[in-house]
């Protein structure tokens, strides 16, 4: 067995940089994946976009001014990536305002959904699916990521007024959905 000998300075530095990178990924991966998934609602797409977001961020490390802002900066890149994706593929116009009028009938339910409804998770997923893409995106960025409304408007490239509209409608729809579900006793214990 040949011995490599003492590591050279460049080797050590290189490995240390790799370690930092690995830590950055493992610390933020789950959170970023969830953020992207909630926006695009598809696991395969979320996987691809998560990869893309991290690669973008790690390639642009020199643009990161303050290390403690790294998590937020990464979130911005991630939500941008997801929103761009929706724009290109879903033909979503993020700046049109939806009405609050909801479809008269409930969307029909498959047997699997009926079984899954007994799970808390699926019940809430269904609630989110009642929202339009722009409402959901605005709601996630504002109420889950905690971005101030101005920044949400920046991300979605709309006016602040439009974004406030999306957020308000989204919150109302979610509330209505929960009330309706409780009434028909679908909410699990």
């Amino acid at each position, binding site marked *: 067995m040949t011995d490599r000998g003492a590591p050279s300075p460049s080797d050590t530095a290189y490995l240390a940089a790799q370690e930092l*990178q*690995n830590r950055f*990924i*493992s610390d933020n*991966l*789950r959170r970023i*994946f*969830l953020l992207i*998934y*909630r926006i695009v609602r598809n*696991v*395969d*797409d979320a*996987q*691809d*976009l*998560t*990869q*893309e977001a*991290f*690669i*973008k961020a*790690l*390639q*642009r490390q*020199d643009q990161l001014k303050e290390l403690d802002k790294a998590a937020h900066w990464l979130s911005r890149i991630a939500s941008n990536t997801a929103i*761009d*994706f929706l724009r*290109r593929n879903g033909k979503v116009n993020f700046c049109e305002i939806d009405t609050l009028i909801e479809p008269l009938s409930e969307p029909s339910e498959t047997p699997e959904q009926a079984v*899954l409804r007994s799970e808390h*998770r*699926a019940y*809430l*997923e269904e*609630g*989110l699916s009642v929202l339009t893409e722009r409402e959901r995106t605005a*709601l*996630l960025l*504002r*109420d*889950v990521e905690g971005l101030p*409304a101005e920044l949400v408007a920046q991300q979605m490239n709309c006016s602040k007024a439009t974004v*406030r*509209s999306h*957020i*308000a*409608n989204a*919150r*109302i729809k*979610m*509330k209505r*959905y*929960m*009330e309706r579900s409780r009434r028909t006793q679908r909410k699990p214990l």
Partner: protein
Amino acid sequence: MKHPAEVQLALFTGGDLGRWERWRVARHIARCAPCQNQIQALRDAGAELRELAAEMPELPNNLTWNRLSQEITGNIRVGLAAGEAIALFDKPAPSKPRLGWHAALVLLGATAIFAVAFWTSLPPQQADHLLASLKRIRTERIGTLIRAVPAATDEAMVEASSSGIEVKENGRTLSLMQPHSDGSTVSVSMEGSAGVRFVDADTGQVTTNKVYYADQ
């Protein structure tokens, strides 16, 4: 007493009203039980949302977050390495943006944006090669088994595909399946055997499944 519009209550809940409006609504709900209930319902919905958003969704094909995160991390690593490899081909040009993320963006194929200028500065075979490879890595998923009912046949046959290998005999089959598809190699030997080699994602072991047919 005039109640605030539902939209106003919704905005109030998240602290999204202007100062003056916020004050008016606060003053109203201090004395209005129905509106207080509305606010509470909106708050509850918000709490549920945050709870949900922190949960991992149901992943398809028996995937676990453990496996998925490993796959994602691996692809990030490869994507970064590939981006740097491509950057090596670029002639340094201070005015151009760093090639790295452009390359990764393009190569991941998730976007249709092609930086034309970028492509022309790369040896074409290299670019195509890496692009195709990364796409392949990106699309490798956990294999699902889709079984077709075998045709009744008298001949003995050995079959290999990326989802499994099987030996068929008199309408009966013995199949060996790959539990996880992490880049598998299919091999066939003319003596009547078919094999699939793969790295088992859980154990990290290299496993080769083979099926044979030998006359009794």
